């Protein structure tokens, strides 16, 4: 019985040069691959012999490829071989000289159609998260403008909003174009949902950490808030990566963890170097209305008893400065 064979010729970068559908007759001559124009598949490659390899039907309906006594031979899966069997539902890759062949035969079983989950999924949640996130971000800008500039709320709001939008737009454009380049998909709503949702979460989380720190007097809560934001950042980058690239789950998770960690360390280093100026008195943290405070407060005497180690710390500074 005759068998259909599909042979793709690719260059060394994987770019397809030709696709041929051939018939392997049974009984009949083998299909010959080589530089000679009389071959069934002609390769214009100086590293290929005139008659390099032959594709033939074997016992039990399998198809094999055999080297025809060349110097360079065949390379299948990084191994130099004299012959190999063509199997597999997506074809077998064989290197001949500097050319690559992808050979699929009718004898191979066909895989089932893969569902395109991304295009089949409902976009409802993405739209919802993007809209809620956008409103929450704008709300934060308005809220801080109202608190910080009672005289100029509108101008301050617009100013903050524009600056925030500019930063978000750069971030958004990065992931959208990366997705377009790598996966041929823009994914507008998905990326917008991730970016806006994460930004809104970070902003309000940070504010909540400030309020909690003020209410409890525990500086650790602020530290906790910063860590939560780092986690949100990691999840955000993971989701963006999975959407825009073909990276596997583990690779994406590693990159998404490394970036916030490196960024936080760089930020801390910068703070240490430039921003926290211990030459000045530590400025106050955020202040909220007194009724928001749940702190019992310390007695005056206790405060000064606990201040005694300031002397040692100051003397320590003095010794270090010498």
């Amino acid at each position, binding site marked *: 019985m005759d068998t259909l064979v599909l042979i793709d010729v690719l260059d060394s970068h994987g770019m397809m040069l030709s696709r041929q559908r051939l018939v392997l007759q049974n009984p009949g001559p083998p299909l010959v691959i080589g530089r000679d124009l009389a071959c069934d598949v002609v390769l214009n490659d100086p590293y290929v012999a005139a008659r390099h390899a032959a594709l033939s039907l074997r016992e039990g309906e399998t198809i094999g490829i055999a080297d025809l006594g060349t110097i360079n031979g065949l390379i299948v899966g990084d191994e130099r071989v004299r012959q190999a069997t063509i199997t597999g539902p997506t074809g077998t890759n064989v290197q001949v000289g500097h050319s690559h062949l992808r050979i699929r035969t009718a004898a191979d079983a066909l895989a089932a159609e893969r569902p395109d989950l991304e295009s089949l999924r409902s976009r409802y949640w993405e739209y919802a998260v993007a809209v809620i996130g956008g409103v929450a971000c704008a709300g934060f800008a308005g809220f801080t403008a109202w608190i910080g500039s009672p005289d100029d709320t509108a101008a301050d709001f617009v100013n903050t909003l524009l600056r925030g939008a500019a930063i978000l737009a750069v971030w958004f454009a990065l992931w959208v174009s990366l997705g377009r380049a790598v996966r041929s998909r823009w994914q507008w709503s998905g990326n917008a949902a991730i970016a806006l949702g994460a930004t809104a979460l970070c902003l309000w989380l940070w504010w909540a950490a400030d309020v909690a720190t003020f209410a409890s007097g525990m500086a650790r809560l602020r530290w906790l808030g910063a860590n939560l934001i780092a986690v949100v950042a990691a999840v955000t980058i993971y989701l963006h990566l999975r959407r825009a690239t073909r990276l596997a789950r583990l690779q994406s998770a590693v990159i998404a963890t490394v970036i916030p960690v490196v960024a936080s360390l760089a930020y801390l280093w910068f703070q240490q170097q430039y921003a926290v100026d211990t030459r000045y*008195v530590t400025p106050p943290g955020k202040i909220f209305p007194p009724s928001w405070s749940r702190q019992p407060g310390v007695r005056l005497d206790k405060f000064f008893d606990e201040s005694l180690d300031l002397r040692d710390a100051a003397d320590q500074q*003095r010794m270090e400065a010498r």
Partner: protein
Amino acid sequence: MAQNQADAQKSGASPAMPAADGDPLPAETQATPLPSAALDADEGLDLEWDQGPVSAAARRMLDRVRSSVVRIRGFYGTNRSEAFHGTAFAVAPGGLLLTNYHVIARAALSPEAYRLEYDTGDGRVGTVSIVVVDVAHDLALVRADKLAPEPLKVRSENPARGDRIYTVGFPLNLGLVITEGIGNGRLENEFSPRLYYAGPMNPGMSGGPALDSRGRVVGINVAFSTRGQLISFLVPAEFVAPLLERAAAPLGASDLRSEVAKQLRNHQAEVLAALPASFPTQTAAGYALPAELAPFVDCTAIAGAPPVKGLLLQSVACRANLALSVEPGLQTGDFQFGHDVLVADRLSPLQFAEQLRQVAAAASARLKPAPYVTDYVCKRDTVNLNRLQGVVTLCVRSYRLYEGLYDVTMVVISLNEPRQGFVSAVTLRGVDFAAGMDFSRRYLRAIRWTR
């Protein structure tokens, strides 16, 4: 007098001005300035005045004391070019000379870098060694090698207001000069005793004698104000005798720095001891806040420019007039404090809290770093004060080269009312740690919510 001394004393000298306002200067005092060209040829100034020719009396005085007054010069390393100079005069036999501490401060604190010499003006020069110092009164006793001028007589009672006074010294590089002016008694509202001399005084005259009409020393030239005219200051001569007593136990060159630190701590201890146990307060918007703690503490209260509409701001600033000049560029030993009281009539509590934070941040940034101190170490907590809570930030920094000396700074933010509050900041410079904590504690005790 060192040039920067004049600048440094600018603000410290200001309290003398109100005292002088009620006491108009006699016309002749204002006509006294001597042009430098006339110094060596004062016969040319033969003017008729009510009390006779000014120049004749001054010339007799100068002739009388000339041999007892020398120029003290400081040199860096092996240089023959002068680093600084001042004036000194003989107060005891055996070449014991009196000058200002600030004249010889650099040589006292860095004996390995600076050396001192005297110059009599008639060609005799020689080395000078430091015997004892009195930082609080800005005096120092030095001993001149191979020179024994006749000591000037010292009069311990202060001159009365209106007494004629002559001062002698080496201003700039103009040689020995005498100036004439009027004594105006002791300064009021100053912690360190000073005499107010209404007469000209210039850099380089520091440490020179101020003499009464009989040639007795009534004070030592120390400072002048650049904010007014003929506002100069003398150290009263009463502090000379105690210093001479201490000359029996001279200090080694290496001990001087720790001695200076000790005297600074003692000075602050005396200052703090002079303050009442419970600080007096004045009330603003229901908050009782520390006010004029002592006569030498000056306060001003103004309506500040509100940062936003609907906010009333009043600012109180207080300072103690007692900074000591320890070395060029280092003034310390004083304290200052201030309050910003905010009342909002149409801001929401959240908006008001943000305004309070901004005022507190500005107050925290106002206290500048300096090369001679370390960075601050701070502690912050919510503290229960009298009938209100406050966020207290207490910071300490130490002096790099003076052991046991600290700057203590405290910022207090009130936390009791949704639409009003205050930020109070206090700084003590050059203080013993325990004394600084004690002052801060008394300061916080005084703060009270009165409504």
